[in-house]
């Protein structure tokens, strides 16, 4: 798609404003005529969806340069550290946390050993995120990101426009592992963020660091379209270089009769199972990246089949694996993924326990790799024989099935309820697998679910001993 040379008047006023105080000059401070044409094209296309919201890059010219410089740094810097050591930047980072960040200042004097530092969790961020904003950060440029709160701790996180824009640097780094260099620029659409939920925040924008290539965040749910057939027509007209989304929205995207091909799909938000990834790769004829990313830390790692794990992406992020008591586990053992560092100056993380489980492989001269990454704390399920199965065993057992998403819940009486979404899934085969694990006489209720509410907690149990 190219819109250059096809100037049209801006019709941004088609959209209902979300905030009376925010103007387009705030949303797109560096917008040129090319950018205006792109926005207009995205909004006015005859097959465009009903965009329900507005957002912008908010980057000043100085910040655009800052984002470009950071991108160069990300592309050239090595992520990682030597086995048994900590990265060289860590010491200064901890010093700055103690000197400048109110929450960490309350700890008192900095301990000599890094592993003596207290850990923090999502609950700490949720309690008062203002205490994590260092002294020097100017409040007038602050923006916020809301998290969904599926773990019981909804949060409003502080950030800055260049931080949001810098996600692109890590996406490029991840894409480079798969041989993809982004080239779309002026007059082209760089990325479409796809969702597929009953309600979804949708808008259009441009990316200044990519010469104002277009950005559209859309919802594939039919409610957002005048005609469901418009979805494929619109996306073909845009021809984005990249789609980002989650396994559910990609499963919906795969159903559309698209004629155009992206250069890559980037999946975030929830685990992407290998069969679905393979199916998407075949369908779209491009690499499908499974990104481990969170609002608190941005893109942390990307799954690389050659490494059989998620390779770390950030050069100023130190990852530890801790046991329940907060002690580092021996190398190679599983535990809780714990983060220090990051690229958000409003949220310096010092031993942030993510709630996600993995092992870590650190080899000199190579990027560290998270092995067997599992979101959320582990949940155990009891079999009819009274044995306990960790949720990772359930995940492994279900790997052969092309499931986009599933949940498993065990009631206090031991009965199991399994809900899934996925195409070409053999329910009887799943039932056989689950009965094989839990026992033939264990009641198992299996059914499909469209998971339209978005993120859900995958493994849950009413049994008090379920959390090991």
């Amino acid at each position: 798609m190219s819109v250059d040379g096809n100037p049209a008047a801006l019709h941004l006023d088609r959209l209902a404003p979300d905030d009376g105080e925010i103007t387009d000059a705030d949303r797109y401070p560096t917008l040129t005529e090319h950018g205006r044409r792109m926005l207009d094209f995205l909004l006015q296309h005859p097959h465009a969806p009903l965009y329900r919201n507005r957002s912008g890059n908010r980057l000043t010219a100085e910040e655009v340069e800052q984002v470009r410089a950071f991108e160069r740094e990300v592309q050239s810097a090595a992520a990682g550290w030597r086995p048994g050591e900590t990265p060289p930047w860590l010491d200064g980072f901890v010093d700055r946390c103690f000197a400048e960040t109110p929450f960490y200042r309350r700890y008192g004097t900095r301990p000599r050993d890094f592993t003596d530092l207290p850990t923090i969790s999502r609950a700490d961020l949720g309690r008062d995120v203002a205490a994590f904003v260092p002294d020097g950060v100017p409040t007038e440029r602050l923006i916020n990101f809301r998290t969904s709160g599926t773990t019981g701790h909804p949060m409003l996180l502080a950030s800055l426009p260049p931080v949001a824009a810098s996600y692109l640097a890590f996406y490029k780094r991840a894409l480079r592992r798969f041989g993809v260099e982004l080239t779309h620029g002026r007059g082209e659409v760089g990325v479409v963020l796809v969702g597929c939920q009953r309600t979804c925040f949708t808008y259009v924008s441009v990316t200044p660091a990519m010469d104002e290539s277009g950005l559209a965040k859309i919802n594939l749910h039919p409610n957002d379209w005048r005609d469901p057939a418009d979805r494929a027509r619109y996306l073909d007209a845009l021809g984005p270089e990249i789609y980002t989304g989650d396994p559910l929205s990609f499963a919906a995207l795969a159903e559309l009769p698209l004629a155009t091909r992206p250069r890559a799909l980037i999946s975030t938000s929830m685990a992407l199972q290998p069969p679905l990834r393979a199916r998407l790769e075949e369908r779209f004829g491009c690499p499908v990246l499974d990104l481990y990313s969170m609002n608190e830390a941005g893109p942390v790692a990307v799954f690389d089949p050659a490494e059989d794990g998620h390779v770390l992406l950030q050069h100023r992020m130190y990852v530890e694996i801790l046991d329940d008591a907060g002690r580092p586990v021996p190398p190679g053992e599983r535990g809780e993924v714990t983060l220090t560092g990051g690229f958000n100056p409003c949220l310096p993380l010092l031993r942030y326990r993510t709630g996600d489980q993995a092992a870590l492989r650190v080899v000199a001269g190579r990027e560290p790799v998270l092995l067997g990454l599992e979101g959320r704390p582990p949940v155990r399920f009891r079999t009819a024989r009274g044995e306990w199965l960790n949720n990772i065993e359930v995940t492994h057992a279900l790997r052969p099935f092309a499931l986009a998403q599933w949940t498993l819940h065990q009631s206090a009486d031991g009965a199991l309820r399994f809900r899934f979404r996925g195409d070409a899934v053999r329910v009887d085969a799943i039932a056989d697998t689950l009965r094989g694990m839990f026992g033939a006489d264990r009641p198992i209720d299996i059914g499909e679910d469209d998971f339209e509410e978005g993120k859900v907690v995958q493994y849950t149990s009413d049994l008090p001993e379920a959390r090991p």
Partner: protein
Amino acid sequence: MEREGPVLETLTRRLAETPEDFLAEPRIGAAGRVRTAAVVGDLLRALGAAATPGDLQRFSGADARADRNRLSVTLVLCWLLADEWFVRAAPPAGLLLPLLGAQAAELADQSPAGKFVTDPDRREELARVALTRLGYRPAGETKAQAQDRLTTLSSAERARVLRAARAAEQRAREIREALIKKAAEESADKWGRE
């Protein structure tokens, strides 16, 4: 403060030379190295004072983030009170335990423990607080002189802490207001969503 104690400089010098063991991380849960309760117990025995397990319970700590600084101050105080002069003076447990407990917590609210070793004013404050709580004044000072100097040191520090707390609260309020003002679900573009 009725009785004359040691020369103040001997105590501040001792604080400046606090050994690594007393500056190490207090053990809280599975983390840290030094068991503060055990150190307090040893100190009390060395000073001829008795402590029950209940007396020592508060020196274990439960939450590193809330307890590590006060326990670190307790450890620095333990080093100070292990001085030969205090061993000879043998203050009673009824005075030692409040000094090592509540008083240490109060001091920890105002300063990182390390400052009581590295900062000359905080060293002097800690030495004077310890003497005062045990009923002594520095050698060569009248009761009024000792009281004046401690008040000057403590009130200046309290005023500084109060100013800093007010400034921190004001900034936190500004941050919260700025975030709420921009409470649209997303206020700048990202290429992906978590």
